[in-house]
């Protein structure tokens, strides 16, 4: 690095994707997620001090889904400067896409012993509605998990960015869209299980879902997806494309008068970010066993932004740290002082905004800079 800095012609950031130490860190995380956790959970006996309980496996699995959302939010907010409060919607759509498949996997084991999901029997429906036509196929639903949020984000983004809707107006519109979708999903006749949503899943790909093996498998897949998304985000941020995104954040008019079409850049990162959230949602649902419209509530979207801000915007590790920190604190707080969690969250957000504008990661960064 220093050699690059001192070279007579500055070469700019043209070193590899990660430094050797960072690659070591990535490797350590992959080993932890893919080897250590499964071993500690499955192979170590439950009475041993080293045993990792099922509770923690599912908690961390869940938080890793949140971390993917925070990473997606960071790309669009931290790097491009567009605050979306609609990422809860993309997360939930991904979750619903997976949920539809899981509902069909219940088969005749539901309360009503019918081929149709229970809530449809309850509504006295005789056949599957049209939008469930792919729900028998895992790959079909996976396609929808990516395509529906991706297409929605693309169409919404196209009109919003073309109309040059920016800043707080964009945030409000994304929030309104999420809220409208929530109201739609709350209704029984839209065919998404109303306010109960989907739950009582039995199996995935024919394999029982509530077993220790499946829990760890989903954990490992989520962890590897998180690492994969991190590396992808890193590649994006370090490309010239990533620098154009930051330029849009800092001075969009200059970007335009330099000849770049900001719409294409914003639209592509916005759609990618939405799809990342959808993948997180699809991984989340089989792990927590439920999806309902509350995932689209305005609070859910705001929380994603809070994780990102607390961890540190415009750094890729920040939002992941933030998701773990806030959700770790949440799971502890809601056990110890259940009534005070929201107060704590509010106080945390204010404190971070006032004292740590660069988030938790910024704290370490400042200290490292001071030392050097």
């Amino acid at each position, binding site marked *: 690095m220093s050699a690059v800095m001192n070279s007579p012609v500055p070469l700019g950031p043209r070193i590899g994707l990660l430094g050797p130490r960072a690659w070591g860190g990535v490797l350590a995380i992959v080993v932890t997620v893919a080897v250590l956790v499964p071993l500690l959970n499955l192979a170590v006996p439950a009475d041993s001090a080293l045993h990792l309980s099922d509770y923690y496996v599912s908690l961390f699995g869940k938080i890793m889904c949140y971390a993917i959302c925070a990473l997606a939010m960071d790309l669009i907010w931290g790097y491009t400067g567009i605050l979306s409060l609609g990422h809860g919607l993309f997360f939930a759509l991904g979750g619903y896409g997976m949920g539809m498949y899981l509902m069909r996997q219940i088969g005749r084991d539901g309360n009503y012993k019918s081929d149709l999901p229970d809530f449809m029997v309850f509504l006295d429906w005789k056949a599957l509605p049209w939008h469930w036509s792919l729900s028998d196929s895992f790959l079909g639903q996976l396609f929808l998990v990516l395509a529906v949020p991706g297409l929605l984000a693309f169409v919404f983004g196209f009109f919003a960015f073309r109309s040059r809707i920016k800043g707080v107006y964009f945030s409000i519109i994304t929030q309104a869209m999420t809220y409208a979708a929530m109201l739609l999903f709350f209704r029984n006749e839209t065919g998404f299980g109303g306010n109960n949503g989907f739950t009582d899943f039995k199996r995935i790909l024919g394999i029982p879902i509530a077993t220790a093996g499946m829990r760890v498998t989903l954990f490992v897949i989520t962890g590897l997806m998180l690492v994969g998304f991190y590396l992808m985000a890193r590649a994006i941020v370090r490309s010239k494309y990533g620098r154009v995104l930051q330029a849009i954040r800092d001075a969009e*008019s200059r970007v335009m008068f330099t000849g770049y079409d900001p719409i294409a850049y914003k639209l592509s990162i916005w759609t990618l970010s939405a799809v990342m959230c959808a993948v997180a949602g699809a991984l989340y649902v089989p792990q927590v066993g439920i999806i309902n419209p509350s995932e689209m509530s305005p609070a859910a979207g705001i929380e994603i932004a809070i994780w990102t801000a607390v961890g540190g915007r415009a750094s890729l590790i920040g939002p992941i740290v933030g998701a773990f920190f806030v959700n770790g604190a949440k799971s502890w707080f809601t056990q110890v002082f259940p009534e005070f969690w929201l107060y704590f969250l509010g106080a945390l957000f204010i404190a971070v905004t006032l004292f740590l504008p660069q988030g938790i990661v910024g704290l370490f960064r400042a200290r490292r800079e001071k030392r050097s």
Partner: protein
Amino acid sequence: MTPDLQEALAEAKAAHDERERAAASGGREASFGRLLKIGEPDFAHGIALYVDDITVSFDGFKALNALTLQIAVGELRCIIGPNGAGKTTMMDVITGKTRPDAGTVHFGSSIDLLRLRENEIAQVGIGRKFQKPTVYEELTVFENLELALKADRRVRASLFSRLDGEQLDRMAATLQQIHLKDEAQRTAGLLSHGQKQWLEIGMLLMQDPKLLLLDEPVAGMTDEETERTAELFLSLEGQHSLVVVEHDMKFVDQLTQGRKKVTVLHEGSVLAEGLLSDVQNNEKVVEVYLGR
């Protein structure tokens, strides 16, 4: 296929392409005896910019009132005028930020700028410096220049773009030219006001525009920096057309060197045009500047 058949096909295709191209330019090359390339301005008449009869009103207030102006290829033109004379609005119209109510703006004789969006106008070769220095504060000086460097502006090209040796040389030369070589790895937000102005000028140069619009480029610069900027602009004269909007008469004097035309704008139209010394003694101009 036999080789001779391939050859005949290639010939036929070339003839066809030629006809297509002629058709795309409206067949005009027949009368003018030259081919127009799409997206390339046509400077055959020696005029880089035609601003014709432009009117812009904001809520009844006429910011530009039938403004007509021509800038020659390679010309350095200074535009002066009191506050509110419409100087910045004129730049907004040329660069596509503001749509006029009436009139036309052409880049060369072939490109109608009013049909293009801001980024397309930049791509055909018009660069603009804002009144307030506008750089990417969180990026380094080097990265600021890199983004401005003339290259494919599309998303996919940016994803896989890498700088080659020639581009690096150009950037190094520009860094030298704008006196920011030692600051290349500094974050642009940490530069002084004058340095930011220079960085923005450097970014314009990286774009390699045919026409540069410079809105108060020396505001906030020290005398020495101002002088160096004048030298820089004078060195660009001839290769690029420059339009400089400025209040600093000393700077304008340096740029015009007592022989170039100055345009005075007032209430959205041209009040006077001529040498700086003539214009400064023009009664109407004095009246406008000093008030009645």
